[in-house]
């Protein structure tokens, strides 16, 4: 099938399957996360169609699409305002289990990730272990057939919506810090596990802190060998960094900026058409976004050819997030004071009241605010630059 035929097929599917409320959730996204319920509803529609895990191998529920088909699919979903799927199970744990899980683990978890029955969150960072992840302290102590886990994880996105968590825990204090870490799967309803929400700067809750007070977990939930968790996690982090197509996010941002700047609300009204300063600033970011898009395609090509995209994924993560932040700033400049109005209820997809001020500026301020964390999560921009310096430039 040619790419253009495939694209039309995807477009037709989106046109018929995206309900107004699900689409609304996509339009109202103010971070990488969408409204959980709407995202899950969309997940189930995709699952029914067999399109929920295009990146997985065919035999495990993938689509068998080519790289470019997968890219087209993501792009069309984004531009049609499909909400983001809560993707830690699909994008991270699933591929990892396929690679290093036991048969039992695959059979137990993979189908439930695909169906949306399980929502997985990620327990990596700790209050004392952020950029220096390997210094993590949450301890798992062997007790018969179980581990007893004590400690705390933080910045656990959507833990409040998740029924399972995959964690890095310390199983040994011998040798290098990295050498005593294990990767383990935990049910959120296990006794001793509690979740505390963290209110973000926009006033909503995306992040949580998870506490483990003598949480008993079967040793069979270990993925990979004991003390081999760091290797497992490292390959996953590269998934997290390299697996995301920032250029597609940028296209959605650019489309929004064009709409805002052409509206009667834009600062000075003529900002878009007649303001050479703004036009030049927009073009400056747009050109960087285009260069990044081609870089992402190169990375994907290399990955498809079996090369390890590792360090290049640091490049796309830094540039992708920083370009996104620059677009947020341009949006803010267009909407100016219109963006001040805080109306969190109007940002929920089920809202039926009247929006105060221009609807095209509703997400502007929370997007700007929330996206500051993009250069922090998944390895800070500083850590990524260190990786490039060390592993690419061999400094």
């Amino acid at each position, binding site marked *: 099938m040619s790419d253009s035929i495939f694209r039309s097929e995807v477009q037709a599917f989106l046109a018929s399957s995206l309900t107004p409320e699900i689409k609304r959730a996509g339009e109202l996204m103010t971070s990488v996360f969408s409204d959980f319920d709407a995202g899950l509803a969309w997940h189930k529609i995709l699952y029914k169609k067999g399109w929920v895990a295009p990146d997985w191998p065919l035999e495990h529920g993938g689509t068998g699409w080519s790289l470019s088909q997968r890219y087209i699919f993501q792009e069309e979903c984004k531009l049609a305002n499909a909400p983001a799927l809560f993707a830690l199970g699909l994008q991270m744990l699933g591929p990892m289990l396929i690679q290093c899980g036991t048969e039992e683990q695959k059979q137990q978890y993979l189908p439930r990730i695909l169906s949306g029955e399980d929502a997985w969150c990620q327990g990596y960072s700790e209050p004392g272990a952020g*950029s*220096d992840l390997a210094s993590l302290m949450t301890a798992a102590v062997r007790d018969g057939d179980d581990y007893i886990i004590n400690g705390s994880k933080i910045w656990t996105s959507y833990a409040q919506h998740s029924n399972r968590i995959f964690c890095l825990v310390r199983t040994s204090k011998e040798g290098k810090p990295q050498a005593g870490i294990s990767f383990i799967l935990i049910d959120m309803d296990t006794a001793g596990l509690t979740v505390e929400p963290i209110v*973000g700067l926009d006033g909503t809750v995306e992040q949580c802190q998870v506490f483990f007070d003598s949480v008993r977990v079967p040793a069979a939930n270990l993925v990979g060998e004991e003390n081999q968790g760091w290797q497992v996690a490292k390959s996953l982090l590269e998934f997290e960094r390299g697996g995301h197509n920032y250029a597609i996010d940028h296209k959605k941002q650019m489309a929004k900026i064009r709409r805002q700047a052409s509206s009667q609300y*834009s600062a000075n009204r003529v900002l878009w058409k007649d303001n050479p300063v703004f036009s030049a600033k927009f073009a400056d970011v747009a050109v960087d976004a285009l260069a990044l898009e081609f870089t992402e395609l190169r990375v994907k090509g290399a990955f498809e050819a079996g090369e390890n995209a590792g360090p290049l994924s640091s490049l796309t993560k830094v540039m992708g997030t920083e370009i996104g932040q620059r677009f947020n700033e341009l949006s803010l400049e267009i909407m100016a004071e*219109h963006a*001040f*109005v805080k109306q969190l209820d109007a940002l929920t997809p089920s809202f039926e009241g009247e929006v105060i*001020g221009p609807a095209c500026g509703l997400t502007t301020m929370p997007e700007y605010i929330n996206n500051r964390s993009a250069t*922090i999560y998944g390895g800070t*921009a500083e850590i990524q630059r260190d990786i490039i310096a060390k592993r690419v430039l061999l400094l």
Partner: protein
Amino acid sequence: MAAPQKFNETLLLSAFCSFNQTLSRVSTDMFIEYSEEQTMLRDSAEKYLRDNYSFENRQATVKKSAGFNAEQWQTFADLGWLAMTFQEDAGGFGGGALETMILCEQFGKYLVLEPYLESVVLVGGLIEAGGQAAIREQYLSGLIAGQLQGALAYLEEGSVGDPLQVQMRAESSAGGFLLSGKKTVVLNGPEADFFLVTARTEATDQSSDQGISLFVLDKNATGLSRKNYKTYDGRSACELELINVSVGPDAVLGELGDAHELALPVFHRAVVAVCAEAVGAMDALMTATVDYTKQRKQFGQPLSSFQVLRHRMADMYMEIELTRSLLMATAWKLDNSAPDAAQCVSALKAKMGKAGRFVSHNAIQLHGGIGTTDEFSVGHYFKRLAAIGLMFGSRDSHLSRYNQL
């Protein structure tokens, strides 16, 4: 308070002057030193806010429906802060842009929510500048005593970034006027006892600076309705709708059709006020970031030992100091009616826009996740700086005004 001797003027090094003359038309022949009264004002404001305006109490106010803490406002009045910049014949202490700057810098440092900008700098400033005796009598002493709240309603759907884009019309009617139209993002609107509203009284072009008038409207005026809300930076604001609001000729503030000329110096003062607030906020972020990076350890050492972060903090510091220099110079020039004062106002607002982003973005970045939480103050400074950066014209609009002046 006697009018203070504001500055000791000295010439900067001649080498610097000649260097400067080749680059800019802005005169830099001044050296800034606070008077004793000004130093006292700064120190007492700092001390009061340090002792009485904790971040926790501030956040408790943000979570309430009222826009600010009325007790704090009354204390500000009792301390003489609200009177500070009014002339003595209006019951004030005769302070100028410099006193505005000194107070607002402290307000920024402590993230003060109370509407000093809205009620005193803008509304008080406009009434003092243009108000007829009756209007001054009715409103000024109440504003200064902290008993009245005002709000300036000038933004419209298409006017953000440009106060001249006034569409609202005031039609002559039976010796007075009928006002109809909408105003948006009226800061302090929910708390206001009265509004100053811009409207066109002549059929001038939508972006003309001629033919705009300012009207004083009571909050209970028939035909006026408001829709209240909070802003992302924790303030209160409203949308204002006017349907055939009828006012007499005495509701016009200043000369008919001359609101632009009347408002320009007040907007200049307001730019100094918000930029001083920004400098105070940036100072607070700088301190917080330096402290945090010294204390937070990763890879077995404090974050402050990593060169890339040390340089970033050095850059933050330099941005703040450059902004502070422009701020002080601009306040001084406004008070001395220097011919290049307007150009300095635009230079200041443009510089603040850039510095505010750089400093707040990096303060969050260097704090990491904790900087993105509602519980921690850093993000609240960031949100306030974002708002200030957009008020009274963005960096770009001031850059182009700087070039044109």
